Structures are given as structure tokens and as C-alpha cells.
């Protein structure tokens, strides 16, 4: 930890302070949305191999019933979010722009919200291995946006050992507040989920890191801590991208994940609060992940808030429910810093969707900006949380020296947080340059 941390909240070096825009949604309790007429359930909602469908066109399924099974270890099953009939398996648009095979589920009118599948199980009686299997069976993935299968993350390789579970409650992206609400409304489920994760990984201590703009969540969780002192809550500085794994570990523990490495190399495993709270809710009941909380916000949304949405709900349906306006709009899945914009309103909400933002004219106009030459103001250098030199990388990209970027200037350490583009007074789309450079390098290597 740097010297400055002695005088403030724990934090990492560099980073930016975009307006948080959470005041409205942070105070809005989670509300359930009704079922849409049709659910679009992509088979590749997680990182890894897509799930294999186990239903056919015409089958009837009940809410909570598995409709696809995991294909190997790095994969998870998918459960039916509503009672209804399978209409088919077709290519449908996804958040990443590529169409993907998806199960179409026609929801019965008046279908019940009750989950009709799953058996209660006592976690305490399970072996660690059975616990990890139960986590895979629940279809759980990282709900913060990465959608990496949770049981894989919680399986520590033989040759490594971890001592600390870091629980990520930063939610550093502007607008998003679903994790904030989960911490406030389901603290006990979160504590349960943390215990499961500690058992699965064999860690003795857990630290929950929360940005200090959510002190109510800090207090709520502190009031619900177990007495044995194994779990603690730490407020960290509100700064983007505090919620990035590497930054949060640095802030809380002062350890640096080696370049190109993963946290378990320095004895840490990180999970998102939303993920662990959902695990705490689902595992005892033996249920699968069929719905999630998303923040619907942005200047274009009429009723911003946090909504519990069945997975597979098309964003167009969500938008009809909350209302939106603007003759020129941009729809973003996730936060404004890293979330992709989508063009198709039948793109579904999936396991990794943390938010749905609608930006309209004022923002869009102010963003349609002229690109000026780099004036070497060094703002990007002071913003990059990875301590890269985005200014120089950008100039190399303009000269198409993509290999030099990777070999000499650590291009591959960039995780595309967008801090450099955010601060650039010349409006240079640095992150986009870096994405292109990485893609071309990958192609060259292949």
C-alpha cells in the first residue's frame, strides 16, 4: 500500500472519478418484473463451453427445471426461468453482437413465480467436492459481468493455495446499484454464500471490499458478520476501476497480481457480492440460477431502478415496462465504462448482465466529438490503473506498430477499463485502438 493510504481509505494508485449517477437507483428497492411472453435463453451465457440443450421443441418445462446441461468442467447448466413450452432452438442476437443458439421458451399465461424444481439440501453435510458440484449444478457464474463459472473459480488447483477470499462489493461502474441493493436487502444470504465459497476454496478469512459511497451497505453487513471474526468488511475509496479484481486486491491486501497471472497465484480468490448472495439463496434450496437483479437507469429511463428479471427477458420488454424516451438512444448492457452497446431490442438479459442503461440526445451529442491530435497532456498516464503509457500506445497504434505495443509497452496488461479514453481531452478512442491492436496481434499469432 502506498504512503497516501495512511491518510485515507485503502485504494490503488491512479484511476478516475466519473460522476457516479447512483443517487436514484441506490435508494430504490429491488422490484420484480413480470414474465415476458417469450424468453430467449442463449446457451453461451457463461465463459467456457456452451451448455448442451436437454429439451426439444414442444417440451413443457416448469420454472426451475434444467433445460441444458454443462458441457464439461468449464461450463454450467441452464434452468428454465418460467413455466412454459419450448418453441425451438434458434440463432438469436446476443450482447456481444454475434448471434448464438438460444432456447426459445414461450411462457404460459399466468405462469407462477413459484420455483417448482429443486430439493432442499444441507450444505454442512456435504464434502467440499460435493459442494463444488452443487455450485456447478446451480448454474452459477460471476454475476458482476464476467460470467465466469463460479465452481471453476472456487476450485483451487492442487499446486496452489489461497488464504483470503476477497468479496467484491465495489460496484465502481457509474449508474449500477444492483450489488448495492443485494447487500442491503440480502445480507444474510450473502454471509451464507461467503461461507460456502470459503469452504469450497479452503480459505480461513474473507474480506468484503465496498466503495465508501455505500456506507449504508458497510454498516448493514458489519451488523450481520459472524462472531468468529473470519469475515470482515472494509470500506475502500470510491474510485473507478476499484471493482476490478487486481485493483481491489491491491487496495485491500497490498498484493499485486503478476502480469498475465490470476489472483490465486498470490493466494487470493475474488468473488462478487451479487454472485455469493445468489449462491446463499439458491444452494440450500437446491435451485438453479433463473433470475437476476439488473439496474435499469440512464437519462432516457422513465422509471429507473433495480429489477429482478427472469434470465432471457428481451431488453425491449424490460424497456417497455420501465418506459424510455429519446429520438436518438443508445442501449448499454452493463455500465457506461465497459458495457457493450446493443442494437437489437430482442437481445436478452443473461447471467452476466448487470445493468441496462439508456442514454439519449444530450449525452450522445456531447459524445459525438471531434478527435484532436494527442497533445501529450499525460492525463491518461495518470489515469491508467495498470500504470501503462496509453499516450504512447495510442501513438504506436496510429502507426500500426501493434507488435511493439505488445512486446515493449505491455499492451496485453490493458483490461480495457476505459479510464484513458474517459480523461482524454483530445477524445482519442484509445481503448478502441487497443482492442483493434490486440485482435490483430491475436490474428497474427494464430
Amino acid at each position: 500500500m502506498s504512503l497516501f493510504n495512511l491518510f485515507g481509505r485503502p485504494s490503488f494508485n491512479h484511476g478516475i472519478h466519473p460522476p457516479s449517477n447512483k443517487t436514484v437507483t441506490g435508494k430504490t428497492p429491488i422490484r420484480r418484473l413480470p414474465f415476458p411472453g417469450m424468453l430467449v435463453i442463449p446457451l453461451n451465457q457463461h465463459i467456457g463451453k456452451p451448455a448442451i440443450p436437454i429439451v426439444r421443441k414442444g417440451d413443457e418445462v416448469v420454472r426451475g427445471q434444467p433445460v441444458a446441461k454443462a458441457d464439461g468442467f468449464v461450463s454450467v447448466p441452464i434452468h428454465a426461468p418460467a413455466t412454459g413450452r419450448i418453441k425451438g432452438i434458434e440463432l438469436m442476437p446476443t450482447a456481444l453482437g454475434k448471434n448464438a443458439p438460444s432456447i426459445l421458451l414461450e411462457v404460459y399465461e399466468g405462469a407462477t413465480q413459484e420455483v417448482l424444481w429443486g430439493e432442499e439440501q444441507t450444505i454442512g453435510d456435504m464434502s467440499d467436492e460435493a459442494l463444488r458440484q452443487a455450485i456447478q449444478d446451480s448454474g452459477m457464474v460471476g454475476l458482476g459481468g464476467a460470467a465466469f463459472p463460479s465452481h471453476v473459480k472456487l476450485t483451487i488447483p492442487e499446486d496452489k493455495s489461497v488464504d483470503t477470499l476477497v468479496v467484491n462489493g465495489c460496484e465502481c461502474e457509474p449508474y449500477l446499484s444492483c450489488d448495492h441493493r443485494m447487500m442491503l436487502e440480502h445480507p444474510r444470504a450473502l454471509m451464507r454464500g461467503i461461507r460456502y465459497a470459503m469452504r469450497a476454496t479452503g480459505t480461513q478469512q474473507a474480506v468484503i471490499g465496498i466503495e465508501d459511497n455505500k456506507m449504508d451497505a458497510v454498516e448493514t453487513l458489519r451488523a450481520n458478520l459472524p462472531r468468529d471474526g473470519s469475515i470482515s468488511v472494509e470500506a475502500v475509496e470510491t474510485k473507478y476501476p476499484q471493482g476490478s479484481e487486481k485493483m481491489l486486491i491491491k487496495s485491500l491486501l497490498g498484493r499485486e497480481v503478476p502480469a498475465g497471472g490470476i489472483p490465486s497465484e498470490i493466494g487470493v480468490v475474488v468473488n462478487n457480492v451479487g454472485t455469493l448472495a445468489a449462491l446463499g439463496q439458491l444452494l440450500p434450496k437446491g435451485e438453479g440460477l433463473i433470475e437476476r437483479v439488473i439496474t435499469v437507469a440512464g437519462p432516457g429511463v422513465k422509471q429507473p431502478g433495480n429489477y429482478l428479471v427472469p434470465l432471457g427477458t428481451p431488453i425491449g420488454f424490460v424497456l417497455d415496462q420501465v418506459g424510455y424516451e429519446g429520438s436518438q438512444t443508445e442501449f448499454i448492457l452493463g455500465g457506461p465504462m465497459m458495457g457493450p452497446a446493443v442494437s437489437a431490442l430482442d437481445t436478452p438479459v443473461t447471467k452476466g448482465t448487470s445493468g441496462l442503461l439508456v442514454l439519449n440526445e444530450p449525452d450522445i451529442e456531447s459524445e459525438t466529438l471531434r478527435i484532436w491530435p494527442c497533445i501529450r497532456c499525460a492525463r491518461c498516464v495518470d489515469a491508467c490503473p495498470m500504470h501503462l503509457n496509453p499516450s504512447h500506445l495510442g501513438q504506436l497504434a496510429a502507426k500500426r506498430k501493434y507488435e511493439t505495443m505488445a512486446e515493449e509497452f505491455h499492451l496485453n496488461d490493458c483490461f480495457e477499463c476505459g479510464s484513458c479514453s474517459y480523461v482524454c481531452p483530445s477524445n482519442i478512442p484509445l481503448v478502441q485502438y487497443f482492442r483493434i491492436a490486440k485482435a490483430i496481434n491475436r490474428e497474427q499469432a494464430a
Partner: protein
Amino acid sequence: MKKSKSQIELRTTPHTHAAGDVVKIMRNVVYALLPIAGFAIWQFGLSALALLITVTLSCLLTERFFNWMGSGYNSLGDWSATITGILLALTLPPAFPLWMGAVAGIAAIALGKALFGGLGMNVLNPALVGRAFVQAAFPVAITTWTPAFFDGRFSQFAPSTLALPFLRPPSVDHWIELLQVDAFSGATPLALYKFEGIQTDTVELLTGMTTGSAGETSALLILVCGLYLAFRRMLDWRIPLTVMGGVALTSALLSLFDPERAPDTVFMLFSGGLMLGAWFMASDMVGSPVTPLGILIYGLLIGSLTVVIRVYGGLTEGVMYAILLGNAATPLIEQITQPRVFGQRASK
């Protein structure tokens, strides 16, 4: 699913952007320079005003000419040529012949900026390139100083101001005698110090009750204007600070090893063009390093070079060459001071 009722935008991340752009930064630098220009006009009268206008216009026209030669895009709107013009005028003697000022402006933009490819591409500070050019071309005119605050400065030009192009400007000595200014030696504080060993009072240096280039006299005013920019985060405070640190450090070192010629630190800091150079020229973003350690080295280098040139060089003032050398060294400095990337050879 019903179609969206509106036009859907698709853009890459991030979808939000910090307020302010290059134009806003440049415009604010112009705002910050205006009080300094105003003080120069109040102090030196019509000649300074005419010089400011001429040099700035010359810069703008040259910039426009290269626009026309090149892309056709009008880059006057980014205010950078205006900054170069005002800064350049502020570094010239107030009674500098106007036609020579125009030459300085042309040299600044043509040789200092357009030749390298325009905004953001120049290696050296354009205003200082212009000044260096006229320093070499017109060595007498650029060291001809006129008194400050003389009566009638708002009703008459110094005779040298209106000199005809390509002719030797008339001497101002007789004109200064006629003005009956008390005790005007025709020397700047630095020249007085260097050649006669007279150290000008610090209060006079701070408030600008001395002579010198049009805009360099009041250290205090420049400090305030620079701080305005620093507080608005449009100027990297580390650069002026390290430049001043370099001056202080070198003066202190010299007083250890060479007490005979050692200058007074406070005098070094507040005399000549150091304040203007540190706050408005060394800090020019384009010519300075972007790496934290690089900024430190760059600042210290400029500061120490300034003192060394002032004390040991043939010139009375060293800020201009110190900054130009700092600019030239920037690519090298940056190359050797790339920051340690997060997670590379973890230091702890």
C-alpha cells in the same frame, strides 16, 4: 418484439467522457495569459500593445497559411496559435520593432510547429523557437530595453517600435533621455546582477517594478495566473514546481562549491523569464514528458540549466535555451523513464 421508436446509436466503450477538451484547455491558457498581457500593456504602454497584436496576428496568419497549404482544415479554432503568439510577444522587449515581431511570429509557427506537423507534433516550444530565431537574427534589438511606467506611454510609441522593415531600428537612447526617467540604466535585473553585481530588491521583482521583456516582469502575477490553470487542472503543477526546485537546488549547490559567484536563490527564482518560462512554457504539454519520473528529471534539468547559463554563460538570461534543451531531451527522458507496469516484477 416491437421496433424501437428511435434511432439506435452504437458506439464503443466508454460511453461517458470527462468534461472538457483540447479547445477548452487552450482557451483557458489564453485567459490565464490575458492578465499578464494586460500588465505588460499597463507597464510599457502602446508599444507593448502593438507588439502583442502584431506578433499574435503574425502567428495566426502563418498558421492559416499552413492550413491552406496543407489539409485545408482551419486550426485557428483550437487557440494554440493564439497562445504561441501571446507567449512569444511576452518574451520580447517591449519596444521590439514590430516588423521583427512579425518575423518572430512567422518563425515560431513555421519552424516551430508547422514543420513538425502541427498541433501535438512539435518537439520544441514554438514560441521559444520564434524567440531563438530573432535572438540570432536581431541581437541588438532583442537586448534593447526601455523603461517601465514612463509618462506618456499611452500616447506615444518607442521610436524603435515603428522601425521600417529591413532597416536598422533607430536608437532609443536619445528618446529615453528625453523621457527624463530617473535612474534608468537600460539593464534588466539579471544584467545588473551579472555585469554590475547589483541585486534588485525582491519586492520589485515580485510586483514587476523593473524592466525586462514585456511579460516577464511581475513574478507574482505570473504565479497567480499559473496557479489558476493548475487548480483548473489544465497545467501540470509538477513541471513549474520541479523547474523552480531545480533552480533552488542548483543555486544552493553552487553556493557550496563556488560561493564567489553563487547567486541568491530567491533572486534567481523571481528574476528574468524564469516564472513565465516555468509556468507557461516548460509546462507546455506537447514538449514535456508524460511519465512521472520523466517530469521530475525534465523540470530539474531546465531549472539547473537556467542557473548554469545565467551564472557561467555569456548571456544574462538562460531560461529560453534551458527549456529548448529540455524539450529536445524529452523523447530520450521519456524512453528511459517508462513507468513500472502493475504486476511487473512486483516490488513488494
